[in-house]
């Protein structure tokens, strides 16, 4: 029954998606027209999405980062138990996979950093780059489950980058007149070069570091979580 209801739901959603296919193309509203006409002139960013996410909707991005922080701390609070049951010893990975993972770790981190540093030029940005950095950490954890991340370093990175985000917003409030304002503090630079867009690249780098540290910490906690002793007794 539950599967039937679910399948009907999926069917309705699929028909909806199907009807959307011929509409693939630009749509115009008041705000999207404004952003497409003024976004590049206001911020000098080649990737307009970044201008919208970090400048026009910068406060929302701060909220998203906070939501991610809250969910990761909740998961950590629930999953970290020192008195849990010991889990089964994992089978070791083959030498080939271990060597490959070690060789690919540094290129993946560099590529993630490339994505969030170039967030205002190419697609992607803080969230995507942070996810790629976290996937590099994931690769090490997949090969060897018992590897531990340096927790102090993660905490410092995460706190400092979050603090930097809010501080940038406050500086914008003092200099430009509104929170996260992009006017006045940094030169906007030349369009489509690395040093352009004013504060936007700085904020996206901070977001990238923060998201990467948070997702890595989440994966670390998930991989090292142990069985719940209370739950086991209750079931038995």
């Amino acid at each position: 029954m539950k599967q039937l209801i679910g399948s009907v739901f999926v069917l309705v959603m699929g028909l909806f998606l199907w009807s959307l296919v011929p509409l693939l193309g630009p749509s115009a509203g008041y705000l999207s027209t404004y952003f497409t006409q003024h976004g590049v002139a206001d911020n000098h960013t080649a990737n307009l999405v970044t201008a919208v996410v970090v400048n026009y909707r910068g406060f929302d991005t701060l909220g998203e980062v906070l939501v991610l922080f809250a969910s990761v701390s909740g998961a950590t609070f629930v999953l970290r138990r020192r008195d849990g049951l010991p889990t089964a010893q994992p089978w070791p990975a083959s030498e080939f996979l271990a060597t490959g993972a070690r060789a690919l770790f540094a290129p993946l981190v560099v590529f993630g950093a490339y994505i969030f540093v170039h967030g205002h030029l190419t697609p992607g940005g803080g969230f995507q780059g942070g996810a790629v950095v976290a996937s590099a950490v994931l690769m090490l954890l997949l090969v060897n489950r018992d590897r531990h991340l340096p927790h102090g370093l993660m905490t410092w990175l995460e706190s400092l980058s979050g603090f930097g985000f809010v501080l940038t917003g406050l500086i914008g409030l003092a200099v430009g007149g509104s929170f996260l304002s992009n006017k006045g503090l940094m030169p906007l630079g030349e369009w489509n070069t690395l040093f352009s867009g004013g504060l936007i690249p700085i904020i996206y780098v901070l977001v990238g570091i923060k998201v990467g540290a948070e997702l890595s910490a989440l994966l670390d906690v998930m991989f090292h979580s142990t069985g719940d002793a209370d739950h086991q007794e209750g079931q038995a």
Partner: protein
Amino acid sequence: METFTAVLGVAGGVIAVIGALFLFLGALGIYRMPDVYNRLHAGTKATTLGNILTLVGFGLTHPEWLPKIALVVLFVILTNPLSSHALARAAIRSGVRPVAGTTSDEDCALTGGQKP
């Protein structure tokens, strides 16, 4: 120079079509083969070759994008053997038996199972 670019584009298109045919053969092998190990054989080697050929062909049709596409190809060459190897090892360790008539005695000694 212009004819050179045009010829390069047509050659790239032909290479891409050949690569796409390899992709199709790999998928056909996955569809038709009897068990996991045979499917790995068809589905990883043929699709890797097809992938590389298709990407290089696409790159030749737009030579100015070739460095970026070469990066993708390099990444595929580096990572795909790893994932195929991990999948084969996982299939053996999770206890999937090879189909009858495809194993030798040495294979059985490797997997620790009897000859089916």
